[in-house]
């Protein structure tokens, strides 16, 4: 789960304050929070993430550690896995670990063909970590 996805999740858990509410409460520059949630690339400085973590009452490391694991990086990994015809190992936020060859991937999901021949559609927003070539 990228930082943006995680922030969106935290906002939903908190009761759904608007991005403007969050910006006012945390001092994040107007418009930046929405970008942090929506953009595919890494957004937000450490200070901003720390203030957001305090607002959502989660460890700052929870947010900061996700910065390299962006949606864009996941896309790159999925494409690479397809190109290499290599299995990819996905660790999900739900605790599941899935492995398979990527058949396709798009905006919201990726289809994995597992070793047993079963197809599995993984929602991308649940993916926290990934590794290519791990069977």
């Amino acid at each position, binding site marked *: 789960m990228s930082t943006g996805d995680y922030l969106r999740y935290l906002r939903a858990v908190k009761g759904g304050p608007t991005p403007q509410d969050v910006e006012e409460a945390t001092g994040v520059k107007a418009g930046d929070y929405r970008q942090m949630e929506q953009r595919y690339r890494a957004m937000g400085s450490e200070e901003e993430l720390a203030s957001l973590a305090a607002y959502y009452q989660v460890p700052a490391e929870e947010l900061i550690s996700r910065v390299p694991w962006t949606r864009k990086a996941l896309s790159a990994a999925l494409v690479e896995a397809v190109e290499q015809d290599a299995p990819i190992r996905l660790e999900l936020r739900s605790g599941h670990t899935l492995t398979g060859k990527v058949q396709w991937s798009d905006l*919201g999901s990726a*289809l994995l063909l597992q070793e047993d021949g079963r197809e*599995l559609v993984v*929602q991308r927003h*649940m993916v926290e970590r990934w590794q290519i070539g791990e069977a």
Partner: protein
Amino acid sequence: MAQDLWQLRRQKRMTIDELARSAGVHPALIKAYELGERSIPERDLERLANALELDVEDIKELSDPPPRGPSRTTAPSTQEEDAPARPRYDSTAPRYDSGSRYESGSRYGSDYGRSSYGNRSNDAPRYGEGRSGYGSGGEGRSSYGNEGRSSYGSEGRSSYGSEGRSSYGSEGRSSYGSEGRSSYGSEGRSSYGSEGRSSYGSEGRSSYGSEGRSSYGSEGRSSYGGGDYNRGYGDRSAPRYDNDRGARPMRPPYRQDRPDRPDRTDRRMDRPPKKPGGLKRRPQVAPARPSQLEHLKILLQQLDMSGDDLLRLAGKPLSMLNRKEASHLLTTCQEMIAERKPERPKGKRQRPYLPESVDEHELVYLTQVQLDNSPMHLTLFDGSTLVGTLQGFSPYALTLSINGGDEVTVQKLAIAFYQVTPAPEREEAAEHEAAPEHEAAPAATAEEEKS
């Protein structure tokens, strides 16, 4: 005791021009100082004092305006009787007061217009009566009620700041409001607003509104107080003294409603003197920017052009191009590249498909699942599962039919992953559904047997 500037100037027998030249103060400013329209700033006060060879204390900082002749009650009335017929102004027409355009250029407009020369007195003639007001009508001889050469209470030659002949409407014949040569503090010919022939409301040829030849600063040559500064009244067109004027809206009095503005003359004089050196040099065109050269190199590579080709195209090597030439060459190269490229078919997507910008794979997949009516196993974010057949979907949610009846819509955000039961398994499951009745019976039988 401090005296008015105009008094001191006359005592020194200087014209305004002369004083202006020697003091380095603009004549218009001096005029303003003399009329009391401006107080003299310290800097100018010093200059004027030096020019007049006086002490600063001798000059009043704010002068009273110079007197403008005897009371109007006496002068004009007698002359009206003798005056030849001449176009009359409608007495109902407004006087040349502040509504006239004189006011815009000088304070004379406001002074003379509104008030002076008899307009204040009740029995003073108006411009609409007889030949003129202002005690003119003296057929060139008099002014202001005087005969012959005198003017403005003076005799012949003297007066109001003039030298010898002229006077405040003087030189024998003219006057302030008379035939023509008079002037207001000038040397003979110049006049208060006109050159030579006209003057301020006079006989025959010119006048303040009469017969239209000239008037109060018309003909572009007049000078306000003589000399050469024509920008006073002279540059303005002659005023209109038609009778229709009464119907026009009157302008507000000159300068009364205007905010004070810094005098241009002051500003001009504050400027540093221009440097000698003549004309501005035309700047040379700068050499080409490095970025331009880089861009050119890239374009030339795209065009597969060699150095020789470039020389033919540009006429000189890249390093010798100036900015303008480089820009021109860039445009040429870009046009050449555009000509080489085939046109893209319209309507075709220009941008590449990126996984994060496409959502059609899942859409196709779900459509197929829905058509197959295959059961789906959803695993949610908390680990719980949901099984049902897909009834519908959107980019954000799936709707399942649970147990063939209840419909449940699940947000995709809550889903971790889902699995579709493959068709063979489904058949097996169907078989398995049918089998339990058969299998259950024997099992039950077996249990019964055991028991």
